């Protein structure tokens, strides 16, 4: 599909951490281009710059140098406040540890990004219900995280990521805290989200999980080592 638009365009991105006496170069000139409705896995051993790249893609951090164009917007050197808005609007985060608010119900957890988007309470409720139904938790809205299984919690987190209709779902080891059967269910859910036209970026160190993606980007020592299309053999 040659007419798909680029959603993430990273050019010569560098990130240097100043640790006082020493400087650590986490990214040393990374170029990545991700198109709309891509399904990309980012892999690499620890220290490869994988987490740094994820933070930068997620607009949680700004690069030392280089360019980052997210859905046509140059975001590499935006202010804190602007980045918060971009995160809210463009990116849905899914974390390894779910990161749900323990005292809030599933519905309230899903509503959270809409609160910061300034949506009205009724609109928040309506869209959060939809998102929870989409992940198969229509009957668990009032439950608190400690009343749900790990898989259900991660579904709530996915619903929370989807509720703002973001351009990108950014998932950091989404199955890391789940058993393999539950993990598979979550990956099937991502497949569904992908089929709906979303762009998914998966950060993982597990080959099995990465193979769910259509494309695997491997990092090593702060550089892209390889960027391959996954063969869908059987």
């Amino acid at each position, binding site marked *: 599909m040659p007419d798909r638009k680029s959603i993430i365009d990273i050019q010569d991105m560098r990130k240097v951490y100043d640790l006082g006496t020493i400087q650590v170069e986490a990214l040393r000139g990374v170029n990545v281009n991700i198109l709309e409705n891509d399904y990309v896995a980012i892999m690499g051993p620890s220290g490869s710059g994988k987490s740094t790249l994820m933070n930068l893609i997620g607009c*949680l951090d700004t690069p030392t140098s280089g360019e980052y164009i997210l859905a046509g917007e140059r975001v590499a050197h935006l202010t804190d406040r602007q980045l*918060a808005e971009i*995160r*809210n609007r463009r990116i849905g985060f899914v974390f390894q540890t779910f*990161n749900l*608010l323990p*005292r809030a119900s599933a519905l309230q957890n899903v509503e959270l990004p809409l609160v*910061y*988007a300034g949506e009205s309470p009724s609109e928040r409720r309506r869209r959060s219900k939809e998102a929870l139904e989409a992940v198969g938790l229509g009957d668990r809205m009032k439950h608190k995280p400690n009343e749900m299984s790990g898989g259900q919690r991660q579904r709530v987190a996915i619903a929370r990521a989807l509720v703002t209709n973001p351009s990108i779902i950014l998932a950091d080891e989404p199955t890391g805290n789940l058993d393999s059967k539950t993990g598979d269910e979550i990956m099937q859910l991502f497949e569904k989200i992908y089929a709906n036209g979303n762009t998914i970026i998966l950060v993982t160190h597990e080959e099995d999980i990465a193979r769910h993606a259509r494309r695997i980007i491997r990092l090593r020592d702060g550089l892209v080592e390889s960027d391959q299309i996954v063969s869908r053999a059987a």
Partner: protein
Amino acid sequence: MRFLVDVFNGLRIAFGALRANKLRAGLTTLGIVIGVMTVIMMVVIVMGLNKALKSQLDFLGAETVFVSRWDWQSNNWRDMIKRPDMELDYIDDLRAESREIEAISPFFDQQMTVSYRGAQLSRINIQGVSEEFFLTNPKELAEGRVFTAQEVSRNANVTVVGPDIANQLFPDQSPIGKEIKIGAWNFEIIGVTTKYGKVFGQSWDNFCVIPYGVFQKRFAGQNFDGLTIVAKGRGEDRVEELTWEVTGIMRRLRHLDPREVNDFGINTQSAILEQFNSMTAGVYAGGIIIGFISLIVGGIGIMNIMLVSVTERTAEIGLRKALGAKRWNIAWQFLIESAVICAIGGIVGVALAAGVSQAISSFLPTYMPLWVVLVGVIFSAVVGIFFGLYPSLKAAQLSPIEALRSE
């Protein structure tokens, strides 16, 4: 509108966090509770005392001066007793020279026994006055009439009595027209005043008012205090002018040199109240300072616990930021939490103060106006905002990556 939504969200988060840490929030807010309670108790007691004294002194009349040998606010008896006697002639001079005086009367008093057919009342306050006295004093009549200028000038044996006398000597009938004995002399009751109540625990309703000429003729020999001149001015707001004018006239009548001090006493209700208020003001200020110190100590406690709360909830802050919370969203959340803890402390403090002042009101007059309640609660919320500021800004400054990593 947007602002209200933010406040509402902040409140919801704050109450959720407080519910999760009830004991801790309760202990933290104790300093605020005690601070607010101290300040409010101080205000309530001092205002109560001042108000009680004011109402106790109302019988004097707010627009009246009392000129006599005695300064009520002094206890230098040895000097005051050497002062010359007050003279009845002064009354005519004062009336002639003053622009401020509306009514003026002599006043003598003396404790006597009053009786009617074998029933006896001892230590009754007998007051010798002119007919104008009833214009200077806020006494009202329940029955009958007051005496006339003619009755005063011909020294008629008539009396206006307080309701205690009437009730005790004539429980079942009207006392008007009855003859009672004051000491050894007969007086006809022509009027009864309305009930006034107690002043400093003593009934203010057991007196007999008689014409001053009769008083002088029959009882003056036993009168120790001497003459007091009671002069009523044109209103409460002119009592100062009245005081100055009467002082000036009195000094002229006494031929006082400008360097000499007054050899008479000029007494007003407001002067007594002022003296009392200046006494209570010291207590007031002291109590408020103590209350403020405990509020500050309480505020530091709040700051401490908010810092702990920020550290504990680093991951939550990171998550909120990742989901799009801006710095001020986070700062706002913690500020509201801090303000809510303190405002709850303030409400508890006010409630405790209200309870305590109710409990002690039987032996100590208290007065709690609504503004004290509002100021107490609002002020403690302000303390919460002030001491919550640093922890809130600290939370707002957290980098989302660091915060998320802390999990």
